[in-house]
């Protein structure tokens, strides 16, 4: 007899197979990771040290431990996956069991009496249930049960191949109702056959003069009324089954959705993000800096700024806490500043932070990006930060990161001439060089006596230049520091590739 568990058995089997595969691997991977981590101790116990260059054995041990930490996190995710498979299998099995009980479908269905006397010309309701396509009333004390069996068998039989249909509320219920209606029509056909046979029997009895015409007419009425009674029972059962099957389908869909939600929440694709967060924690210990860098690392160019700061911190003897500091006592939204190495952020700006909303740090992200660009040029080339072309570029990177964090396109950015001459805070929301020129009296010359005349490769004349400073993940080059005298009509946004979030090479004019 087909049950609801049979219907979902293919899914239950796969859930069990996935759970078993995960369980075995969890054990193997955990053991392997523990063994791997233990080698950390071995490195520290060497009689003759391994001659690591650069970061040395500590970095090696840190790499081993970091790998083991990440592995354990991955294994935890596999464990979450296994648990989700087990839960789904248990839920789906348990929810199906009540629907396999016949009594559920007999609520408020008229009982079918099995009473009969010796009158062979009389027709009784229960007789319609005797020819039940292989289901015998002798197998049950209640003839109605044979109807439940018949409908169930005609309905559930092929459903295990239609789980996708069942997992859609409308399609699933349409399928189930269609199957039940088909099963009822088959039963009705059988009942009508029996009804016809009884009429033929009575007509034969009349012809043989076993009964009179009046008697035939009376018994014929009984045949039809008992047929109607039997069909009323069938329809009532079918109605109950339709309701219950729909309930089962809703529970099945809910269990499947719950499983999907759990799998989605495992967050399996973010190991790299976890690794990056760990690196941030390792270099920057101020929770405000950590929160800011986590938030920035979620967007393409923000991640490059974070990588720059991480690279700078790991190569600096003073570390990340020296590179990014916080100052209290400044009014909010007054920006940030740097001294060529250290970036100072305003504590007041952090008051906007909402732990549940990384975009609450978007203003600070823009500020630190602006300053990071300037410290790069300062450290890599000794180019001063307080020049108008530098601010033109740095404000553009500010706009890139803030808009990317908000999930928006980088958007319009004015050409150099417009940016320099527009009054502060133009209505279109873009930044302006007005303040840099008129309030801060910045120079238009980023390269002292060289920059404006030497075009894209002037910086190569610099002594001690280090283009690969902090590995330059922001992809900056001095050729991006142009103005209208070095590149008439200079428009930095033309050298930005939004698809790759990188700056394109600047061709000399």
């Amino acid at each position, binding site marked *: 007899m087909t049950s609801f568990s049979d219907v979902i058995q293919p899914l239950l089997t*796969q859930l069990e197979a996935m759970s078993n595969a995960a369980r075995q691997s969890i054990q193997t991977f955990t053991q392997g990771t523990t063994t791997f981590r233990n080698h950390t101790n*071995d490195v*520290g116990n060497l009689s003759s*040290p391994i001659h*690591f*260059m650069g*970061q*040395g054995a500590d970095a090696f041990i840190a790499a081993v431990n970091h790998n083991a930490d990440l592995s354990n996190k991955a294994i935890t995710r596999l464990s979450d996956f296994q648990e989700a498979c087990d839960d789904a299998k248990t839920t789906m099995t348990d929810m199906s069991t009540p629907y396999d009980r016949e009594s559920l479908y007999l609520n408020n269905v008229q009982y079918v009496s099995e009473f009969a006397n010796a009158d062979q010309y009389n027709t009784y309701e229960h007789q319609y249930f005797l020819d039940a396509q292989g289901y015998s009333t002798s197998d049950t004390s209640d003839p109605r049960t044979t109807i439940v069996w018949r409908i169930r068998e005609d309905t559930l039989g092929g459903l295990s191949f239609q789980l996708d249909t069942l997992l859609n509320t409308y399609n699933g219920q349409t399928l189930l109702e269609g199957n039940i209606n088909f099963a009822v029509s088959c039963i009705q056909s059988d009942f009508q056959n029996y009804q016809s046979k009884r009429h033929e029997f009575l007509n034969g009895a009349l012809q043989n003069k076993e009964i009179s015409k009046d008697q035939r007419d009376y018994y014929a009425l009984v045949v039809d009324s008992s047929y109607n009674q039997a069909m009323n029972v069938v329809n009532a059962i079918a109605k109950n089954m339709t309701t219950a099957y729909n309930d089962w389908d809703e529970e099945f869909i809910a269990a499947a959705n719950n499983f*999907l939600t759990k799998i989605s929440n495992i967050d399996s694709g973010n190991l790299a993000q976890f690794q990056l967060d760990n690196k941030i924690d390792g270099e920057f210990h101020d929770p405000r800096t950590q929160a800011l860098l986590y938030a920035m690392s979620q967007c393409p160019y923000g991640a490059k700024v974070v990588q720059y700061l991480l690279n700078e911190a790991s190569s600096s003897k003073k570390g990340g806490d020296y590179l990014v500091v916080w100052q209290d006592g400044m009014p909010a939204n007054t920006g940030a500043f740097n001294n060529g190495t250290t970036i100072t952020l305003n504590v007041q700006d952090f008051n906007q932070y909402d732990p549940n909303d990384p975009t609450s740090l978007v203003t600070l992200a823009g500020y630190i990006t602006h300053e990071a660009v300037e410290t790069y040029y300062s450290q890599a080339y000794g180019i001063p930060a307080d020049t108008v072309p530098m601010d033109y570029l740095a404000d553009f990177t500010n706009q890139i990161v803030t808009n990317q964090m908000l999930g928006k396109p980088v958007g319009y950015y004015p050409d150099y001439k417009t940016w320099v001459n527009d009054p502060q805070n133009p209505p279109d929301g873009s930044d302006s060089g007005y303040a840099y020129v008129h309030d801060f009296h910045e120079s238009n010359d980023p390269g002292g006596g060289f920059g404006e005349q030497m075009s894209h490769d002037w910086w190569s004349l610099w002594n001690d230049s280090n283009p690969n400073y902090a590995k330059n993940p922001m992809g900056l080059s001095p050729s991006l520091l142009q103005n209208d005298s070095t590149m008439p009509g200079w428009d930095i946004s033309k050298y930005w590739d939004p698809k790759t979030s990188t700056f394109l090479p600047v061709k000399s004019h």
Partner: protein
Amino acid sequence: MRVTGFGIDPIPVSDLGDAIVGEAKDQWHFALYNLDALKSSLDSAVQQLPTTLLNTVQKFVGDFESNYTALLNQRIVIGEILENKVAPTAEAQEMQITDTFQ
């Protein structure tokens, strides 16, 4: 030769190198084999799932497999660094390790 690291006597570097490289070639590679086995078992089950569930589960399996493969490959890189006894340079060491995650 298995080196525990808990002995009183210091461990010769060559023994440690041999042990860890042995692990890299044996246990860590075996872990990759185990990962393949896991992936193949999961893939087989996933392919038979209803389409409604397929994509989400397939994404999890794919993400897990690529992440854990990166971690296992990183272990092999670490093993190779020890096998050579000398890390090429700090920068190269870092590059070799971090690049597997990009």
